[in-house]
């Protein structure tokens, strides 16, 4: 049964597109036929992070308007055989992203793909709503700070009330909390919310914690999803997330400030 997974957060800059790129790559590396769709019409970024921006000819709006077929618009990822990218339009209006048109595309993709990852734009407006509407599962990307948690809470409320599953009274969208840009040192110093603090507010299951790392920026700039980085805690934590998503029981890393405080005592800081 193909799965539609939305990567969303409400707030911008928390790591949705980074997560979409790494998560979809991770799913593909594990043999799932995966497509990742950029819903950020007007501000497309996913193709840059996936390193396929020079191969974008057609986009999701062309497909919705029936100007090209899905096959023409899908771009094959250069790292993974099983991964395709459906880019957003840089020039079109976001209102062109009709709910009905998106539904048609998702139905067609379900015929070929196992996992359909929807990279949501920031905010709670049309683009974000189209990205989440058809979701079966949701990765809620949250930074350890109050405003990000608040926005994630808002998004969870919308998912629970307005998604297709909610409006049709089907089983609710399965929610996963993904904490990104987590700095255990700053959590220990009381400068950041801990994972426990975040979970206390959002009360959804934790799928992973991605540590704050400079390598994410380097990966973005070089057009390589962070999961492909060698010897990187970010890559490892994204692989853990994918493994947990596939149902494996992988112990959580970087979850509590206390744990890191202990490590810090032993190794004398990072």
């Amino acid at each position: 049964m193909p799965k539609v997974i939305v990567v969303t957060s409400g707030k911008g800059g928390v790591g949705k597109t980074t997560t979409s790129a790494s998560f979809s790559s991770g799913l593909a590396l594990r043999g799932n036929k995966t497509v990742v769709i950029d819903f950020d019409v007007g501000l497309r970024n996913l193709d840059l992070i996936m390193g396929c921006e020079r191969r974008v000819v057609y986009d999701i709006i062309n497909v919705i308007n029936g100007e090209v077929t899905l096959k023409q618009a899908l771009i094959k990822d250069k790292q993974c055989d099983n991964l395709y990218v459906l880019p957003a339009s840089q020039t079109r209006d976001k209102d062109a992203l009709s709910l009905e048109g998106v539904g048609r595309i998702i139905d067609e993709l379900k015929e070929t793909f196992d996992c359909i990852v929807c990279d949501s734009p920031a905010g709670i407006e049309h683009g974000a709503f189209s990205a989440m509407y058809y979701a079966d599962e949701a990765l809620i990307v949250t930074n350890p700070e109050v405003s990000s948690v608040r926005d994630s809470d808002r998004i969870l409320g919308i998912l629970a009330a307005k998604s297709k599953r909610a409006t049709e009274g089907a089983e609710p969208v399965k929610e996963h909390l993904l904490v990104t840009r987590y700095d255990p040192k700053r959590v220990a110093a009381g400068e950041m919310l801990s994972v426990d603090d975040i979970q206390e507010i959002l009360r959804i299951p934790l799928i992973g914690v991605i540590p704050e790392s400079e390598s994410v920026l380097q990966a973005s700039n070089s057009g390589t999803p962070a999961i492909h980085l060698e010897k990187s805690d970010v890559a490892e934590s994204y692989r853990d997330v994918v493994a947990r998503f596939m149902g494996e029981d992988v112990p959580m890393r970087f979850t509590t400030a206390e744990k890191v405080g202990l490590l810090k005592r032993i190794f004398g800081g990072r």
Partner: protein
Amino acid sequence: MPKRTANPAPSREEPAFKIKNANLPVLILHLKTADTARVKAQLETRLQQMPDFFAHAPVVLGLADLPTDAEPDFPDLLDFMRSHHMQAAGVIGGSAAQQFAATQAGLGVIPEIPARPTASPEPEPPVESVVEPQPDPGPVQPELPGLEVETEPAEAAPTLTSRPTMVIDKPVRTGQRIYAEGANLVVLAIVNAGAELIADGDIHIYAPLRGRALAGARGNTAARIYVQSMEAELVAIAGYFQVFDEGIPDALRGKFCQIRLESEKVVTQAMNSAR
């Protein structure tokens, strides 16, 4: 949304009394004839069937069904009622002359209920209001000619919680608003900051309340809020609200609290120290 009125400054002098609005159940004895002899005879029969039916309960005499020129003999009727443990509290309806005659006999005049007294969402200031009759699911009476005992229709007091309690068992999140119209509200999951609970009746939250809770939204000043862990941004009863700009006092934060209205002031009380 109820109008938000800030708590007035407390008066300097210790009050010796307070006036409160209340909706109390009361029976209305609608007179269909001014012939008190007939009324007394039929009442006598009725009271023999159920001698304790009135049992010192206040009764209002309804005059609306009387011919406007008819004038019942109030003192005679009152004597009869007193001797049968019926307390006539006043009259409602009828002509000015009939109402005057009633006041001469020592009865109060209860103003007629407007068609929809609180249809406006703006709650009236709950001061110096007159006690109004209120629906009461009283026993159904067998029909007797010339006399009718009935209760007022439910629409007379829409501040009542006439609908089944609304129960929410999932987290109430930022930006969500739950409105229990004409009902009490029970929430079993967390209410996060930026979420809003509104009920015309009481609100019970068996989880932390971090957002807002507004009870008695249509002006029911007797409404209360019970919260298992008090962390609210704002609480309100009947339009009177309290914010916690400076944070919640240590004595209340995270505690099981009761919130109610007392002399137009929202009072938040930790339940362990309440009694």
